[in-house]
Each structure stands twice: as C-alpha cells, then as structure tokens.
C-alpha cells in the first residue's frame, strides 16, 4: 500500500462514514436494533458504542415502526438521525412511517418542516437467509415521491454517500447489499464527497449498455469482462441513485451503444428494471438496435438451499447471454 491508497472493506467504509458523521455534527446520532452493545447485525457499528456515548449510539426495541417514527420525529425536531433497520425485510413494519410520514411531511406542511432523516438498511440475497430475509425491495421505495433512495455499491460510495445524505433536507434511504459488506479493496486517501444525484459509467464500452446498481454491480462487471474476451465491449452503468433516477446517464449510454440490458436483483414484474426499460422506450426508442433485455431474480420466494438461491439470482452467465442476445451473437 502506498500512502495515498489503503485496503478497506465495505463494512469498514460504512463504519467510517458513520463515525465521521458523529464526529462532525453533534446533531447526528445512530439508532437501531443491536447497533450498540452487539455492534450491529452485520457488525457495521462495532466499537462505536465504546467511542461515543449511549445517547448517540442507541439500541432500540424490536419495533421498526416505533424507532423509525422516532427518527422522523427527531429529524423534524432538528436532529440528524441515522436509523439502521436490520434488513429491508423488517422495514415493511415501518412502511407507514416511511411512506406516509417521512415522504409526505415536507409536502403537506408546505415546506415548513423538513425530514432530514437517513435510514440505512441491508438488502438482497445470497447469504442463505431464506425467503423472509432475502428481499430486494429498494425498487418499491424508489416508487415513492418524497424519498431519496441510494444504493452504494463501491467502497467510495459506501464511505461518502452518508455525509451527502445527511446534508440533504429530505429523507434518504441507503440500501447496503448484504453481499458487499465483506468486499475489500483500495480506497484512495484523497477520495472525497460524492453526490446522490447521478449515475456513473463504471466501465466504458460501445456495443451494449448494462444498467445495474448495488449488489449486482460486480456480477455485471464480471460479465462485461467475459464479454470483452469475446470481443463485445459492454458499458456498465451503475445507477447509484434509484430515486430520483438519473435517466440521462442511462439514455446517453444507450444512445451510444443502441442496446441495453438491465440487471436487477429485484423481481422482474413491476420492478425498477421495468421502469428503466420504459424510460429507454420513451426517450431512446429511435436509438435502439435491439429490444431492451433484463436479467432479474426468478419470480419465486428466494430459496434457502445454496444452489437454488444462486439459481434464482442474476448471475454473470445470464448477463452475458442477455447481452449477446441483443447483439444476435
């Protein structure tokens, strides 16, 4: 390691982001199930209770509706709460608070009240946690006006999206894919703030655009690597932000490659991938050389057995096949 890069895991990057936020702003505090003494379900907050006081690292009762509601109230009251929900599956218990309150209050108060709450949650499958703990429901939240939905996939985004989210006057939902926590890599020491507005091209290419985000970004980059060996140069677009959607980055890539495949761990029907496909149809139809392709999870409750779980999720081979199908090769 040289001085200006260092090895770090995604989990560590998230922890550093929280720690930095706690140090930077006394209004910031963290609450959630097992975030304090246990150190977080995915060990993201390990050690923070020792460093910060229990009133800033707060273990909550097992009641998502209550502590998310408390977070919204605290935000209304001028605090900058970071609420951790163990997984997106449990966030369903807090849907009323998120959808009916957090997303609407600024609008319904005519702008008198802002709700600068940040809600972090784990999402996705791949750890053999079975059907009730493997959902990818970020696409649902991306449906709701009034929310911002971000999906950090890289170390840099994991490290720096939180600060931008906390600075935003609106409720921001951060989805951390469970398969990313253990990923490690190098982070530039001079890496700095990131926006939560734009998608980004993670790999340039000219033959087909692969649109993805979060947990499937690296599978998609793998697929692009495989495609490159066969002479197909895939451009990989990481959405980063699911709401508001940065359609322009997607569209300008598709206008260049004239083909698109959307890779989304969510189920196909009524999904975010459907929305992106529709945007492409609406705004880039005349630039297409092939129908838009999609690689999504099989429409089944995510299976527990490892081989079935793997079979149900988008995998590089399927992404390669879908990309090739748009090229007729």
């Amino acid at each position: 390691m040289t001085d200006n890069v260092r090895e770090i895991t995604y989990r560590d990057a998230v922890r550093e982001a929280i720690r930095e936020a706690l140090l930077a702003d006394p209004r910031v505090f963290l609450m959630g199930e097992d975030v304090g003494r246990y150190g977080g379900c995915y060990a993201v907050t390990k050690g923070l209770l020792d460093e910060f006081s229990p009133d800033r690292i707060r273990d909550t009762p097992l009641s998502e509706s209550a502590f998310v509601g408390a977070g919204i109230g605290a935000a209304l009251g001028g605090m900058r709460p970071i609420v951790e929900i163990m997984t997106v599956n449990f966030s369903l218990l807090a849907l009323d608070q998120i959808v009916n309150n957090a997303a609407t209050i600024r609008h319904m108060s005519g702008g008198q009240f802002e709700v600068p709450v940040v809600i972090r949650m784990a999402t996705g499958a791949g750890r053999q946690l079975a059907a009730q703990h493997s959902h990818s429901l970020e696409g649902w939240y991306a449906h709701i006006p009034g929310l911002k939905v971000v999906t950090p996939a890289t170390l840099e985004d994991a490290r720096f999206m939180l600060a931008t989210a906390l600075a935003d006057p609106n409720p921001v939902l951060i989805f951390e894919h469970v398969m990313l926590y253990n990923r490690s890599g190098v982070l530039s020491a001079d890496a700095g703030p990131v926006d939560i507005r734009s998608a980004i091209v993670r790999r340039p290419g000219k033959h087909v655009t692969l649109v993805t985000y979060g947990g499937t970004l690296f599978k998609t980059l793998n697929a692009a690597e495989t495609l490159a060996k066969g002479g197909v140069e895939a451009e990989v677009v990481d959405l980063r932000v699911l709401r508001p959607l940065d359609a322009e980055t997607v569209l300008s890539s598709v206008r260049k490659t004239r083909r698109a495949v959307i890779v989304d761990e969510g189920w196909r029907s009524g999904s975010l991938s459907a929305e992106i496909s529709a945007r492409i149809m609406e705004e880039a139809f005349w630039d297409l050389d092939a129908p838009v392709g999609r690689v999504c999870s099989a429409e089944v409750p995510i299976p527990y057995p490892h081989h079935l779980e793997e079979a149900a999720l988008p995998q590089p081979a399927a992404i390669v096949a879908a990309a090739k199908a748009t090229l007729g090769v």
Partner: protein
Amino acid sequence: MPSLGADMEAGTLVEWLKGPGDRVKRGDIVAVVETQKGAIEVDIFEEGVIERWLVEPGTTVPVGTPLALIASTQPAPGAKVSTVAAVPAAPTPMAPSSVEQPPRARRARVSPAARRLAAERGASLDRLTGSGPEGAILYSDVERAAAAEPVPRPTVPRRLDLAEMRRAIAAAMARSKREIPHYYLCTAIELTRGLAWLEGTNATRPPAQRLLLAALLLKAVARALGEAPEFNGFFTAHGFQPGAGIHVGTAIAIRGGGLVAPAIRDADKLSLDDLMAQLRDLVARARSGALRSSEMSDPTITVTNLGERSVETVFGVIYPPQVALIGFGMPVERPWTAGGQVVARRVISATLAADHRASDGHRGALFLADIDRRLQSPEKL
C-alpha cells in the same frame, strides 16, 4: 408467386429488389424467390408503379399468390390497380392440392435506430440484408450501406440446394413417366456441312465470340418447330395448348448433380450470335443459381445436348407439362454412304421423345427430318 416448374407448389420470397413507388416495366427484376431449383429472380410482365408489397421476405406462399400491387400507368376503366402475380404462371395442370398454410406474413425487422438513420440519410432499406438478431437490419447495416456509393447490392443468399433440386427432378420425372405416353424416334444427321460452316465462321473470331455446335442445333430445332407446332407447347387439363412463342429450354447440368432447363425465348427469331450469347449467359447463371423466374417457367420444349460426353444417343424424358424433348448425342465419325460410296462422315444422332397425346409418330418423323434438312444449310440458320 410464379410457377417455376410444373411441380412447384410454393415458393419463399427471399428479397424485394424494388420498393413501393418504384416504376417498373416488363422484364425488370423485382424480387428473388427461393424454390426447389435454388434462388430465382422474378421478372415482371407489367408496366406501372409498385403500389405495395403483399408478401414479406421470408414468407412461403403457394404458387399464384399475388406478391405485389402494381398501379398501372395507363388508367384502365374499372380497375385502377391490378394485382400482379409477377408472371403469368406456366400452365399448371395439377392444382396445388396439399399446399401448407403459409406462415403469417412477418414484418421485416428494422431496428428503430436503423429506421431513423435511413430516414435521415434518405437511404432505402429495401436492399439491405440485416446482420442483427433474426436478420434485423441494424444501425450499422444502414451506415455501411450509406457509406458505400452507390448502394451495393447485398449478397443475396443464393444457394443451389442440390438435394432439393434432386427432389424436384424426381417429382417431375416420375410424373412424366406416370402420365405422359412417350414415343421415341431417332435419326442420324450428317454434320459435315454444319461443322465445316462452323469452322469457317469461327476461324476469324476470337474464342469468346465463337459459335458452338449447340447454337446451331438449338436454332435448327427452333426453326423446325415453326412448322411443327404440336411439339411446342403444354399439355394441360384442357388438352394440348400451343406455346405463344418458341422458347427452347436448354438442359444445363449443374456441377455436383442436378440440372435445370431454362428457356431461350423466341429462339427461332434470334440470330445465331444472339442465341450463342444467351446460351453462354444462361449456363453461367444456371451454375451460379441466378436464373429468372420467366426463364424457368417459359420453355415450350426442351433440348438436351449431351455434347462431348461420349454417348451417341439420348432418349429423353419429357419435362411436364411440355410435350416434347429433343436429344442430341455426341458427334461421331461413322461410315456413311454418299453417291454409292462408303465414306467417313461426322454424324450426330437426334432423338425425339414426344407425348402421344399431343402428336403422332408420323408428325414426329417429319419434325426430325426438318431439323436434319435445316442443319444441312447452316448458313441459312
């Protein structure tokens, strides 16, 4: 869909070579169809402007199906637009009985990007072959075509499917032997004058312009047919129908097996030079699989000329619905009597296989004798 042979029941449209709005005249090649005999170019017998296509490329349709609407340039009372099945089909004695339902017409696949680029550049999509999924025409296809000036003819997937051709020959020949009561006549024709005249004519010509014996033989047959109309035409459900002209089908062997017998139209009216040029052209195109529909459906008689292949006599099988076939063997040197002397002369055997429903042996004999007589005066051919 023109009938390109008595046993053709359906054909597949491969490609349109003209588009809506294009002005066409008799003889223009408007489309390519895939048949048992390979890819055939469809030429047109009408004059007018193509109104629209009725069949999309890739579609298989029965013989007789209208392929396009052509608006006549001369307004006719009653019907402004005439439906044209490209070619007045050759008499088809057998009704297409068990033609498969044609698959639903499929729209040519042109990607939105390709359509927009073509519109921007004013390029025609008609002549493009797509390189995309399921043959879709893509942006890059239009780009390539637009880059090249003039727009290059795409490579038509012409292919001679020899197995298919064999099946077609089998069907036609089996039907011929099943239905046509053949009779055969044979005579030896002295070629001394004919060959001497050929040698004299060719002596001053470059190789590419030399006449072959085949041209002489074809011309003699064509001229003799003028006096023997019962050998020139078709036998249909309504009996014998004389041909409208003398269009001599010339059997051409295909390398690898199989044969086709495309027509030289109005062979009786062509000069020997023109006939020779057409023969060369036909042979070249037959072997590359680029014959026109009319050439396949037109022949009113077939001539098979085994030429230098070392048999003396050929007894042919009539190609239905034609009623006669003339066969020439190899020219050979034989003892011949002339003026009470036995002399060596070059002779060729000419056979007539004829349909007894349409003619009798006596007329056949006169026909063969007339061919002989004409070959003795080659300068008049």
